[in-house]
Protein backbone atom coordinates (compact mmCIF):
# COMPACT_ATOMS: atom_id res chain seq x y z
CA UNK A 1 0.00 0.00 0.00
CA UNK A 2 2.85 2.36 0.86
CA UNK A 3 4.37 1.72 -2.54
CA UNK A 4 1.09 2.61 -4.27
CA UNK A 5 0.90 5.83 -2.27
CA UNK A 6 4.49 6.71 -3.20
CA UNK A 7 3.97 6.09 -6.89
CA UNK A 8 0.83 8.20 -6.75
CA UNK A 9 2.79 10.99 -5.08
CA UNK A 10 5.55 10.76 -7.66
CA UNK A 11 3.07 10.85 -10.53
CA UNK A 12 1.13 13.85 -9.33
CA UNK A 13 4.01 15.99 -8.11
CA UNK A 14 5.25 16.66 -11.65
CA UNK A 15 3.44 18.48 -14.40
CA UNK A 16 3.50 16.27 -17.47
CA UNK A 17 0.95 13.71 -16.19
CA UNK A 18 -1.55 16.51 -15.62
CA UNK A 19 -1.09 17.78 -19.15
CA UNK A 20 -1.39 14.28 -20.58
CA UNK A 21 -4.57 13.55 -18.63
CA UNK A 22 -6.07 16.84 -19.70
CA UNK A 23 -5.12 16.23 -23.34
CA UNK A 24 -6.46 12.67 -23.28
CA UNK A 25 -9.79 13.90 -21.93
CA UNK A 26 -10.01 16.80 -24.33
CA UNK A 27 -9.21 14.70 -27.39
CA UNK A 28 -11.56 11.86 -26.52
CA UNK A 29 -14.46 14.12 -25.62
CA UNK A 30 -13.83 16.85 -28.18
CA UNK A 31 -13.39 14.62 -31.22
CA UNK A 32 -16.23 12.33 -30.20
CA UNK A 33 -18.67 15.19 -29.75
CA UNK A 34 -17.55 16.89 -32.96
CA UNK A 35 -18.05 13.71 -34.89
CA UNK A 36 -21.42 12.89 -33.38
CA UNK A 37 -22.65 16.45 -33.85
CA UNK A 38 -21.63 16.80 -37.49
CA UNK A 39 -22.08 13.30 -38.89
CA UNK A 40 -25.14 12.47 -41.04
CA UNK A 41 -27.96 10.77 -39.19
CA UNK A 42 -27.18 7.19 -40.25
CA UNK A 43 -23.70 7.57 -38.76
CA UNK A 44 -24.99 8.89 -35.47
CA UNK A 45 -24.56 5.76 -33.44
CA UNK A 46 -23.07 5.26 -29.98
CA UNK A 47 -19.79 4.14 -31.52
CA UNK A 48 -19.42 7.46 -33.27
CA UNK A 49 -19.28 9.34 -29.98
CA UNK A 50 -16.12 7.42 -29.18
CA UNK A 51 -14.19 8.46 -32.29
CA UNK A 52 -11.68 10.35 -30.18
CA UNK A 53 -10.99 7.31 -28.04
CA UNK A 54 -7.99 6.08 -29.97
CA UNK A 55 -6.26 9.44 -29.98
CA UNK A 56 -6.89 9.86 -26.27
CA UNK A 57 -5.43 6.41 -25.76
CA UNK A 58 -2.23 7.46 -27.54
CA UNK A 59 -1.86 10.43 -25.23
CA UNK A 60 -2.37 8.20 -22.26
CA UNK A 61 0.27 5.83 -23.54
CA UNK A 62 2.62 8.79 -23.66
CA UNK A 63 1.83 9.46 -20.00
CA UNK A 64 2.45 5.83 -19.07
CA UNK A 65 5.74 5.62 -20.97
CA UNK A 66 6.90 8.90 -19.44
CA UNK A 67 6.04 7.70 -15.94
CA UNK A 68 8.83 5.16 -16.38
CA UNK A 69 11.28 6.84 -18.74
CA UNK A 70 11.51 10.16 -16.88
CA UNK A 71 12.71 8.18 -13.86
CA UNK A 72 15.55 6.84 -15.96
CA UNK A 73 16.12 10.15 -17.71
CA UNK A 74 16.61 12.03 -14.44
CA UNK A 75 18.16 9.19 -12.46
CA UNK A 76 15.33 9.18 -9.93
CA UNK A 77 15.01 5.45 -10.64
CA UNK A 78 18.21 5.01 -8.62
CA UNK A 79 16.82 7.06 -5.76
CA UNK A 80 13.71 4.89 -6.01
CA UNK A 81 15.61 1.59 -5.92
CA UNK A 82 17.83 2.97 -3.18
CA UNK A 83 14.75 3.63 -1.06
CA UNK A 84 13.01 0.40 -2.07
CA UNK A 85 15.43 -2.26 -3.32
CA UNK A 86 12.59 -4.61 -4.33
CA UNK A 87 12.42 -3.47 -7.95
CA UNK A 88 9.59 -5.74 -8.99
CA UNK A 89 7.37 -4.41 -6.21
CA UNK A 90 8.18 -0.82 -7.18
CA UNK A 91 7.44 -1.34 -10.85
CA UNK A 92 4.27 -3.32 -10.13
CA UNK A 93 3.05 -0.51 -7.89
CA UNK A 94 3.83 2.04 -10.58
CA UNK A 95 2.01 -0.05 -13.20
CA UNK A 96 -1.00 -0.45 -10.92
CA UNK A 97 -1.24 3.28 -10.26
CA UNK A 98 -0.87 4.26 -13.91
CA UNK A 99 -3.26 1.57 -15.16
CA UNK A 100 -5.84 2.50 -12.52
CA UNK A 101 -5.56 6.15 -13.51
CA UNK A 102 -5.91 5.15 -17.16
CA UNK A 103 -9.07 3.24 -16.34
CA UNK A 104 -10.63 6.16 -14.46
CA UNK A 105 -9.71 8.75 -17.08
CA UNK A 106 -10.89 6.41 -19.85
CA UNK A 107 -14.29 5.95 -18.21
CA UNK A 108 -14.72 9.66 -17.53
CA UNK A 109 -13.72 10.54 -21.08
CA UNK A 110 -15.97 7.93 -22.66
CA UNK A 111 -19.05 8.84 -20.68
CA UNK A 112 -18.42 12.55 -21.10
CA UNK A 113 -18.08 12.13 -24.86
CA UNK A 114 -21.22 10.05 -25.01
CA UNK A 115 -23.17 12.27 -22.61
CA UNK A 116 -22.36 15.55 -24.33
CA UNK A 117 -23.10 14.04 -27.75
CA UNK A 118 -26.43 12.76 -26.46
CA UNK A 119 -27.40 16.16 -25.12
CA UNK A 120 -26.40 17.95 -28.34
CA UNK A 121 -28.08 15.60 -30.81
CA UNK A 122 -30.93 14.58 -28.52
CA UNK A 123 -31.04 11.48 -30.68
CA UNK A 124 -32.83 8.28 -29.80
CA UNK A 125 -29.96 6.51 -31.55
CA UNK A 126 -27.56 7.38 -28.75
CA UNK A 127 -29.54 5.77 -25.94
CA UNK A 128 -27.46 3.02 -24.34
CA UNK A 129 -29.92 0.16 -24.72
CA UNK A 130 -27.83 -2.70 -26.03
CA UNK A 131 -24.91 -4.70 -24.68
CA UNK A 132 -22.55 -3.71 -27.47
CA UNK A 133 -23.37 -0.05 -26.92
CA UNK A 134 -22.49 -0.27 -23.24
CA UNK A 135 -19.29 -2.08 -24.16
CA UNK A 136 -18.60 0.64 -26.70
CA UNK A 137 -18.62 3.36 -24.05
CA UNK A 138 -17.79 1.69 -20.76
CA UNK A 139 -15.11 -0.48 -22.37
CA UNK A 140 -12.85 2.48 -23.08
CA UNK A 141 -11.45 2.57 -19.56
CA UNK A 142 -10.39 -1.07 -19.81
CA UNK A 143 -8.67 -0.45 -23.13
CA UNK A 144 -6.91 2.61 -21.70
CA UNK A 145 -5.67 0.55 -18.78
CA UNK A 146 -4.45 -2.20 -21.12
CA UNK A 147 -2.74 0.27 -23.43
CA UNK A 148 -1.03 1.81 -20.39
CA UNK A 149 0.49 -1.62 -19.57
CA UNK A 150 2.02 -1.81 -23.06
CA UNK A 151 3.50 1.67 -22.74
CA UNK A 152 4.83 0.98 -19.22
CA UNK A 153 6.47 -2.24 -20.35
CA UNK A 154 8.06 -0.63 -23.39
CA UNK A 155 9.20 2.27 -21.20
CA UNK A 156 10.92 -0.14 -18.82
CA UNK A 157 12.59 -1.99 -21.68
CA UNK A 158 13.70 1.04 -23.69
CA UNK A 159 14.28 3.46 -20.75
CA UNK A 160 14.29 6.41 -23.08
CA UNK A 161 11.35 8.76 -23.58
CA UNK A 162 11.59 9.46 -27.29
CA UNK A 163 12.32 5.86 -28.16
CA UNK A 164 9.56 4.39 -26.02
CA UNK A 165 6.92 6.86 -27.15
CA UNK A 166 7.69 6.48 -30.85
CA UNK A 167 7.74 2.73 -30.50
CA UNK A 168 4.29 2.40 -28.90
CA UNK A 169 2.66 5.00 -31.09
CA UNK A 170 4.14 3.82 -34.35
CA UNK A 171 3.15 0.29 -33.41
CA UNK A 172 -0.41 1.09 -32.47
CA UNK A 173 -1.06 3.53 -35.31
CA UNK A 174 0.99 2.18 -38.18
CA UNK A 175 2.58 -1.23 -37.85
CA UNK A 176 -0.63 -3.09 -37.13
CA UNK A 177 -2.44 -1.60 -40.13
CA UNK A 178 0.56 -2.15 -42.40
CA UNK A 179 0.72 -5.80 -41.38
CA UNK A 180 -2.91 -6.05 -42.43
CA UNK A 181 -1.91 -4.98 -45.93
CA UNK A 182 0.42 -7.93 -46.46
CA UNK A 183 -0.84 -10.12 -49.27
CA UNK A 184 -2.66 -13.38 -48.35
CA UNK A 185 -1.50 -13.69 -44.69
CA UNK A 186 -2.06 -10.02 -43.75
CA UNK A 187 -5.66 -10.34 -42.61
CA UNK A 188 -4.99 -13.40 -40.49
CA UNK A 189 -2.06 -11.79 -38.71
CA UNK A 190 -3.98 -8.57 -38.27
CA UNK A 191 -6.68 -10.45 -36.34
CA UNK A 192 -4.08 -11.27 -33.70
CA UNK A 193 -2.58 -7.81 -33.43
CA UNK A 194 -3.20 -6.56 -29.87
CA UNK A 195 -4.55 -3.09 -30.65
CA UNK A 196 -6.74 -4.49 -33.41
CA UNK A 197 -8.12 -6.85 -30.78
CA UNK A 198 -8.74 -3.93 -28.43
CA UNK A 199 -10.59 -2.12 -31.15
CA UNK A 200 -12.66 -5.22 -31.88
CA UNK A 201 -13.64 -5.35 -28.23
CA UNK A 202 -14.89 -1.77 -28.37
CA UNK A 203 -16.53 -1.68 -31.78
CA UNK A 204 -17.30 -5.26 -32.69
CA UNK A 205 -20.16 -7.62 -31.98
CA UNK A 206 -23.04 -5.26 -32.66
CA UNK A 207 -25.35 -5.19 -35.65
CA UNK A 208 -23.76 -4.10 -38.92
CA UNK A 209 -23.50 -0.32 -39.08
CA UNK A 210 -21.60 1.90 -41.47
CA UNK A 211 -19.01 2.19 -38.69
CA UNK A 212 -18.34 -1.52 -38.32
CA UNK A 213 -19.08 -2.91 -41.74
CA UNK A 214 -15.51 -2.50 -42.97
CA UNK A 215 -14.18 -4.64 -40.14
CA UNK A 216 -13.27 -8.14 -41.24
CA UNK A 217 -14.82 -11.19 -39.62
CA UNK A 218 -12.84 -11.97 -36.46
CA UNK A 219 -11.75 -15.37 -35.15
CA UNK A 220 -12.65 -14.50 -31.54
CA UNK A 221 -15.45 -12.48 -30.00
CA UNK A 222 -15.21 -9.06 -28.37
CA UNK A 223 -14.66 -10.22 -24.80
CA UNK A 224 -12.11 -12.83 -25.82
CA UNK A 225 -10.41 -10.06 -27.79
CA UNK A 226 -10.18 -7.96 -24.64
CA UNK A 227 -8.74 -10.85 -22.67
CA UNK A 228 -6.22 -11.44 -25.47
CA UNK A 229 -5.29 -7.73 -25.54
CA UNK A 230 -4.77 -7.59 -21.77
CA UNK A 231 -2.92 -10.93 -21.67
CA UNK A 232 -0.35 -9.80 -24.25
CA UNK A 233 0.09 -6.57 -22.29
CA UNK A 234 0.66 -8.44 -19.03
CA UNK A 235 3.10 -10.82 -20.74
CA UNK A 236 5.09 -7.86 -22.06
CA UNK A 237 5.08 -6.34 -18.60
CA UNK A 238 6.42 -9.57 -17.08
CA UNK A 239 9.30 -9.56 -19.57
CA UNK A 240 9.97 -5.92 -18.68
CA UNK A 241 9.91 -6.64 -14.94
CA UNK A 242 12.39 -9.49 -15.30
CA UNK A 243 14.65 -7.24 -17.36
CA UNK A 244 14.50 -4.43 -14.78
CA UNK A 245 15.38 -6.89 -12.05
CA UNK A 246 18.41 -8.23 -13.84
CA UNK A 247 19.82 -5.00 -15.15
CA UNK A 248 22.07 -2.50 -13.40
CA UNK A 249 19.95 0.49 -12.46
Amino acid at each position, binding site marked *: MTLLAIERMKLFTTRSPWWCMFAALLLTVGLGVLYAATAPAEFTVVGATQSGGQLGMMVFMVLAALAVTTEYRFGTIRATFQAV*PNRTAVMLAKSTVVAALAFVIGEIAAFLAWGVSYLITGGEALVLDAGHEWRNVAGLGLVYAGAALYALAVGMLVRQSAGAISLVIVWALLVESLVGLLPRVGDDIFDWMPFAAANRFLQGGGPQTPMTSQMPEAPIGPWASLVYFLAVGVALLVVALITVRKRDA
Partner: protein
Amino acid sequence: MIEAVGLTKRYGSKLAVDDLSFTVKPGKVTGFLGPNGAGKSTTMRMMLGLDRPTAGKVLIDGKHYTELKNPLRTLGALVDAKWVHPNRSAYAHLKWMARSNGIPTKRVDEVLDIVGLSEVARRRAGGFSLGMSQRLGIATALLGDPKILMFDEPVNGLDPEGIHWIRRFMQRLAAEGRTVLVSSHLLSEMAQTAEELVVVGRGKLIAQCSTQEFVESSSSTSVKVRSPQADQLGEVLTSNGFSVTRENQQERDTLLVPDGAIEQVGELAAKYDCVLHELTAQRASLEEAFMQITGQEVEFSTGKSGEEASGSPGEAPVAAEK
Protein backbone atom coordinates in the same frame (compact mmCIF):
# COMPACT_ATOMS: atom_id res chain seq x y z
CA MET B 1 30.24 -0.84 9.20
CA ILE B 2 30.75 -1.52 5.52
CA GLU B 3 32.63 -4.58 4.33
CA ALA B 4 33.62 -5.20 0.76
CA VAL B 5 34.87 -8.68 -0.02
CA GLY B 6 36.48 -9.44 -3.36
CA LEU B 7 34.20 -6.93 -5.04
CA THR B 8 34.53 -7.08 -8.82
CA LYS B 9 32.60 -5.37 -11.59
CA ARG B 10 33.21 -5.94 -15.26
CA TYR B 11 31.65 -3.89 -18.05
CA GLY B 12 32.27 -5.81 -21.21
CA SER B 13 36.02 -6.19 -21.47
CA LYS B 14 36.74 -3.38 -19.01
CA LEU B 15 37.31 -4.25 -15.38
CA ALA B 16 35.90 -1.27 -13.48
CA VAL B 17 36.39 -2.72 -10.02
CA ASP B 18 38.95 -5.45 -9.53
CA ASP B 19 38.82 -7.73 -6.48
CA LEU B 20 38.37 -4.90 -4.01
CA SER B 21 38.29 -5.76 -0.30
CA PHE B 22 38.15 -3.22 2.50
CA THR B 23 36.23 -2.32 5.61
CA VAL B 24 34.87 1.01 6.75
CA LYS B 25 34.58 1.33 10.51
CA PRO B 26 32.25 3.48 12.57
CA GLY B 27 33.30 6.59 14.46
CA LYS B 28 35.66 7.92 11.82
CA VAL B 29 35.47 9.70 8.51
CA THR B 30 36.92 7.34 5.96
CA GLY B 31 38.08 8.80 2.69
CA PHE B 32 37.53 6.80 -0.47
CA LEU B 33 40.27 8.13 -2.63
CA GLY B 34 41.22 7.64 -6.21
CA PRO B 35 41.52 9.49 -9.49
CA ASN B 36 38.57 9.85 -11.82
CA GLY B 37 37.61 6.54 -13.33
CA ALA B 38 39.15 4.50 -10.51
CA GLY B 39 35.83 2.76 -9.83
CA LYS B 40 34.71 4.73 -6.77
CA SER B 41 31.19 5.48 -7.96
CA THR B 42 30.74 1.98 -9.33
CA THR B 43 31.73 0.59 -5.94
CA MET B 44 29.27 2.90 -4.22
CA ARG B 45 26.49 1.88 -6.58
CA MET B 46 27.21 -1.76 -5.78
CA MET B 47 27.00 -0.95 -2.07
CA LEU B 48 23.50 0.36 -2.71
CA GLY B 49 22.44 -2.70 -4.66
CA LEU B 50 22.01 -0.60 -7.81
CA ASP B 51 24.70 -2.40 -9.78
CA ARG B 52 25.20 -6.11 -9.49
CA PRO B 53 28.79 -7.17 -8.71
CA THR B 54 30.32 -9.55 -11.24
CA ALA B 55 31.93 -11.28 -8.28
CA GLY B 56 32.30 -10.72 -4.56
CA LYS B 57 29.93 -8.93 -2.27
CA VAL B 58 29.55 -5.89 -0.12
CA LEU B 59 27.87 -6.09 3.28
CA ILE B 60 26.21 -3.31 5.22
CA ASP B 61 26.20 -4.22 8.89
CA GLY B 62 26.54 -7.83 7.79
CA LYS B 63 23.70 -7.76 5.27
CA HIS B 64 23.29 -7.18 1.58
CA TYR B 65 21.74 -3.78 0.89
CA THR B 66 18.75 -5.42 -0.77
CA GLU B 67 18.04 -7.40 2.40
CA LEU B 68 17.74 -4.27 4.52
CA LYS B 69 14.28 -3.36 5.69
CA ASN B 70 13.76 0.37 5.21
CA PRO B 71 17.32 0.79 3.88
CA LEU B 72 17.32 4.59 4.14
CA ARG B 73 17.26 4.18 7.92
CA THR B 74 20.45 2.13 7.85
CA LEU B 75 22.46 3.69 5.05
CA GLY B 76 22.04 7.21 3.74
CA ALA B 77 23.83 8.02 0.55
CA LEU B 78 24.52 10.92 -1.72
CA VAL B 79 25.80 9.41 -4.93
CA ASP B 80 24.56 11.89 -7.48
CA ALA B 81 22.81 15.08 -6.48
CA LYS B 82 21.02 15.12 -9.82
CA TRP B 83 18.87 12.09 -9.02
CA VAL B 84 15.87 14.35 -8.58
CA HIS B 85 13.08 15.06 -11.03
CA PRO B 86 13.65 18.68 -12.12
CA ASN B 87 9.97 19.53 -11.98
CA ARG B 88 9.43 18.14 -8.52
CA SER B 89 9.95 20.34 -5.48
CA ALA B 90 12.63 19.47 -2.97
CA TYR B 91 9.90 18.98 -0.41
CA ALA B 92 7.92 16.56 -2.60
CA HIS B 93 11.09 14.62 -3.41
CA LEU B 94 12.00 14.16 0.25
CA LYS B 95 8.40 13.44 1.16
CA TRP B 96 8.07 10.40 -1.07
CA MET B 97 11.50 9.14 -0.03
CA ALA B 98 10.49 9.47 3.63
CA ARG B 99 7.17 7.80 3.06
CA SER B 100 8.79 4.83 1.34
CA ASN B 101 10.81 4.00 4.45
CA GLY B 102 8.21 4.79 7.07
CA ILE B 103 9.95 8.00 8.13
CA PRO B 104 7.62 10.62 9.63
CA THR B 105 6.96 13.64 7.39
CA LYS B 106 8.18 16.09 10.00
CA ARG B 107 11.66 14.68 9.51
CA VAL B 108 11.53 16.21 6.00
CA ASP B 109 11.33 19.69 7.50
CA GLU B 110 14.12 18.80 9.93
CA VAL B 111 16.59 17.72 7.29
CA LEU B 112 15.71 20.66 5.05
CA ASP B 113 16.50 22.87 8.01
CA ILE B 114 19.81 21.07 8.70
CA VAL B 115 21.07 21.65 5.16
CA GLY B 116 19.59 25.14 5.00
CA LEU B 117 17.10 24.61 2.19
CA SER B 118 13.89 25.34 4.10
CA GLU B 119 13.22 28.55 2.21
CA VAL B 120 13.45 27.02 -1.24
CA ALA B 121 11.84 23.69 -0.36
CA ARG B 122 8.74 24.34 -2.46
CA ARG B 123 10.62 25.44 -5.54
CA ARG B 124 11.25 23.01 -8.37
CA ALA B 125 14.51 21.18 -7.88
CA GLY B 126 15.45 21.69 -11.54
CA GLY B 127 16.09 25.35 -10.81
CA PHE B 128 18.58 24.61 -8.06
CA SER B 129 22.22 25.55 -8.37
CA LEU B 130 24.76 22.75 -8.11
CA GLY B 131 25.42 23.71 -4.51
CA MET B 132 21.73 23.62 -3.64
CA SER B 133 21.32 20.26 -5.38
CA GLN B 134 24.25 18.96 -3.40
CA ARG B 135 22.59 20.11 -0.18
CA LEU B 136 19.36 18.43 -1.22
CA GLY B 137 21.34 15.24 -1.84
CA ILE B 138 22.80 15.51 1.65
CA ALA B 139 19.32 16.05 3.06
CA THR B 140 18.23 12.86 1.31
CA ALA B 141 21.11 10.95 2.86
CA LEU B 142 20.22 12.23 6.33
CA LEU B 143 16.51 11.55 5.99
CA GLY B 144 16.46 8.19 7.76
CA ASP B 145 18.91 9.29 10.48
CA PRO B 146 21.12 6.37 9.37
CA LYS B 147 24.09 4.87 11.20
CA ILE B 148 26.05 4.66 7.97
CA LEU B 149 26.53 7.56 5.57
CA MET B 150 28.11 7.63 2.18
CA PHE B 151 28.92 10.71 0.13
CA ASP B 152 30.28 10.66 -3.40
CA GLU B 153 32.27 13.81 -4.12
CA PRO B 154 30.17 15.92 -1.76
CA VAL B 155 32.15 19.13 -2.11
CA ASN B 156 31.73 19.31 -5.87
CA GLY B 157 30.01 22.56 -6.70
CA LEU B 158 29.98 23.90 -3.17
CA ASP B 159 31.31 27.34 -2.38
CA PRO B 160 34.08 27.71 0.23
CA GLU B 161 31.56 28.24 2.98
CA GLY B 162 29.69 25.12 1.88
CA ILE B 163 32.89 23.10 1.74
CA HIS B 164 33.81 24.18 5.24
CA TRP B 165 30.31 23.37 6.42
CA ILE B 166 30.29 19.87 4.96
CA ARG B 167 33.72 19.00 6.34
CA ARG B 168 32.65 19.96 9.82
CA PHE B 169 29.37 18.23 9.29
CA MET B 170 30.90 14.91 8.28
CA GLN B 171 33.32 15.02 11.19
CA ARG B 172 30.41 15.66 13.54
CA LEU B 173 28.50 12.71 12.08
CA ALA B 174 31.52 10.48 12.66
CA ALA B 175 31.97 11.83 16.18
CA GLU B 176 28.41 10.71 16.89
CA GLY B 177 29.65 7.18 16.24
CA ARG B 178 28.37 6.85 12.69
CA THR B 179 30.21 5.24 9.81
CA VAL B 180 31.06 7.91 7.26
CA LEU B 181 32.53 7.12 3.84
CA VAL B 182 33.43 10.06 1.61
CA SER B 183 34.81 9.67 -1.86
CA SER B 184 36.96 12.23 -3.55
CA HIS B 185 39.59 12.60 -6.20
CA LEU B 186 41.01 15.58 -4.32
CA LEU B 187 43.71 14.46 -1.95
CA SER B 188 44.01 17.79 -0.24
CA GLU B 189 40.30 17.65 0.49
CA MET B 190 40.65 14.20 2.05
CA ALA B 191 43.63 15.32 4.10
CA GLN B 192 41.40 17.84 5.83
CA THR B 193 38.40 15.61 6.28
CA ALA B 194 39.32 11.97 6.54
CA GLU B 195 41.11 10.12 9.28
CA GLU B 196 41.23 6.81 7.46
CA LEU B 197 41.80 6.24 3.76
CA VAL B 198 40.79 3.59 1.30
CA VAL B 199 42.85 4.32 -1.79
CA VAL B 200 41.97 2.85 -5.16
CA GLY B 201 43.37 3.15 -8.64
CA ARG B 202 42.02 1.43 -11.75
CA GLY B 203 39.57 -0.51 -9.65
CA LYS B 204 42.25 -2.05 -7.44
CA LEU B 205 42.90 -1.41 -3.77
CA ILE B 206 46.15 0.48 -3.34
CA ALA B 207 46.12 1.13 0.37
CA GLN B 208 43.92 1.09 3.41
CA CYS B 209 45.47 2.96 6.29
CA SER B 210 45.23 6.18 8.24
CA THR B 211 45.72 9.39 6.30
CA GLN B 212 48.92 10.11 8.22
CA GLU B 213 50.38 6.68 7.51
CA PHE B 214 49.58 7.09 3.87
CA VAL B 215 51.61 10.25 3.64
CA GLU B 216 54.48 9.01 5.81
CA SER B 217 54.85 5.67 4.11
CA SER B 218 55.00 7.16 0.69
CA SER B 219 57.01 10.32 0.97
CA SER B 220 60.26 11.61 2.25
CA THR B 221 60.68 15.00 3.80
CA SER B 222 62.91 17.64 2.36
CA VAL B 223 64.15 20.98 3.61
CA LYS B 224 63.52 24.28 1.90
CA VAL B 225 66.05 26.94 2.67
CA ARG B 226 66.10 30.52 1.46
CA SER B 227 69.23 32.58 1.83
CA PRO B 228 70.84 35.63 0.17
CA GLN B 229 74.04 33.57 0.16
CA ALA B 230 72.38 30.63 -1.50
CA ASP B 231 75.33 29.78 -3.73
CA GLN B 232 77.75 29.67 -0.83
CA LEU B 233 75.34 27.64 1.28
CA GLY B 234 74.82 25.25 -1.58
CA GLU B 235 78.51 24.50 -1.77
CA VAL B 236 78.72 24.00 1.98
CA LEU B 237 75.84 21.57 1.93
CA THR B 238 77.22 19.63 -1.03
CA SER B 239 80.61 19.31 0.57
CA ASN B 240 78.90 17.95 3.68
CA GLY B 241 77.29 15.18 1.71
CA PHE B 242 73.84 16.61 1.01
CA SER B 243 72.36 16.78 -2.42
CA VAL B 244 70.99 20.19 -3.29
CA THR B 245 68.50 21.17 -5.94
CA ARG B 246 66.98 24.47 -6.92
CA GLU B 247 63.22 24.67 -6.85
CA ASN B 248 63.20 26.78 -9.98
CA GLN B 249 65.52 29.11 -11.80
CA GLN B 250 63.58 32.29 -10.97
CA GLU B 251 64.15 32.01 -7.25
CA ARG B 252 67.91 32.05 -7.16
CA ASP B 253 67.95 32.29 -3.37
CA THR B 254 65.94 29.14 -2.69
CA LEU B 255 67.44 25.70 -2.26
CA LEU B 256 65.83 22.33 -1.72
CA VAL B 257 67.64 19.71 0.32
CA PRO B 258 66.07 16.29 -0.07
CA ASP B 259 66.70 13.89 2.80
CA GLY B 260 67.91 16.76 4.94
CA ALA B 261 66.80 17.66 8.44
CA ILE B 262 66.25 21.30 9.41
CA GLU B 263 68.54 20.93 12.42
CA GLN B 264 71.52 19.87 10.31
CA VAL B 265 70.95 22.50 7.65
CA GLY B 266 70.52 25.22 10.29
CA GLU B 267 73.66 24.23 12.15
CA LEU B 268 75.74 24.16 8.98
CA ALA B 269 74.44 27.59 8.01
CA ALA B 270 75.40 28.98 11.41
CA LYS B 271 78.85 27.40 11.27
CA TYR B 272 79.63 29.01 7.91
CA ASP B 273 77.89 32.33 8.72
CA CYS B 274 75.18 32.14 6.15
CA VAL B 275 72.17 34.43 6.64
CA LEU B 276 68.90 32.49 6.44
CA HIS B 277 65.57 33.99 5.41
CA GLU B 278 63.66 30.80 5.59
CA LEU B 279 64.17 27.26 6.81
CA THR B 280 61.26 24.87 6.55
CA ALA B 281 60.73 21.14 6.59
CA GLN B 282 58.60 20.15 3.68
CA ARG B 283 56.34 17.15 3.82
CA ALA B 284 55.37 15.86 0.43
CA SER B 285 51.77 16.65 -0.29
CA LEU B 286 49.15 13.99 -0.55
CA GLU B 287 49.13 14.61 -4.26
CA GLU B 288 52.76 13.61 -4.50
CA ALA B 289 52.27 10.66 -2.19
CA PHE B 290 49.44 9.55 -4.37
CA MET B 291 51.40 9.95 -7.57
CA GLN B 292 54.26 7.94 -6.11
CA ILE B 293 52.10 5.10 -4.94
CA THR B 294 49.67 4.90 -7.78
CA GLY B 295 52.17 5.51 -10.53
CA GLN B 296 50.68 4.00 -13.62
CA GLU B 297 47.37 3.29 -11.91
CA VAL B 298 46.04 6.62 -13.07
CA GLU B 299 43.77 5.95 -15.98
CA PHE B 300 43.81 9.35 -17.64
CA SER B 301 47.34 10.47 -17.10
CA THR B 302 48.28 13.93 -18.28
CA GLY B 303 51.83 12.92 -19.00
CA LYS B 304 53.28 15.74 -16.88
CA SER B 305 52.88 14.35 -13.44
CA GLY B 306 55.43 16.52 -11.66
CA GLU B 307 53.48 19.65 -12.32
CA GLU B 308 52.18 20.54 -8.88
CA ALA B 309 54.45 22.58 -6.68
CA SER B 310 55.57 20.51 -3.74
CA GLY B 311 53.75 21.13 -0.51
CA SER B 312 51.06 23.12 -2.22
CA PRO B 313 47.79 22.83 -0.36
CA GLY B 314 45.91 23.75 -3.52
CA GLU B 315 43.00 21.71 -4.78
CA ALA B 316 44.89 20.22 -7.69
CA PRO B 317 43.25 17.06 -8.94
CA VAL B 318 45.58 14.10 -9.17
CA ALA B 319 44.48 13.19 -12.64
CA ALA B 320 43.22 15.17 -15.55
CA GLU B 321 39.49 15.72 -15.64
CA LYS B 322 37.87 13.70 -18.36
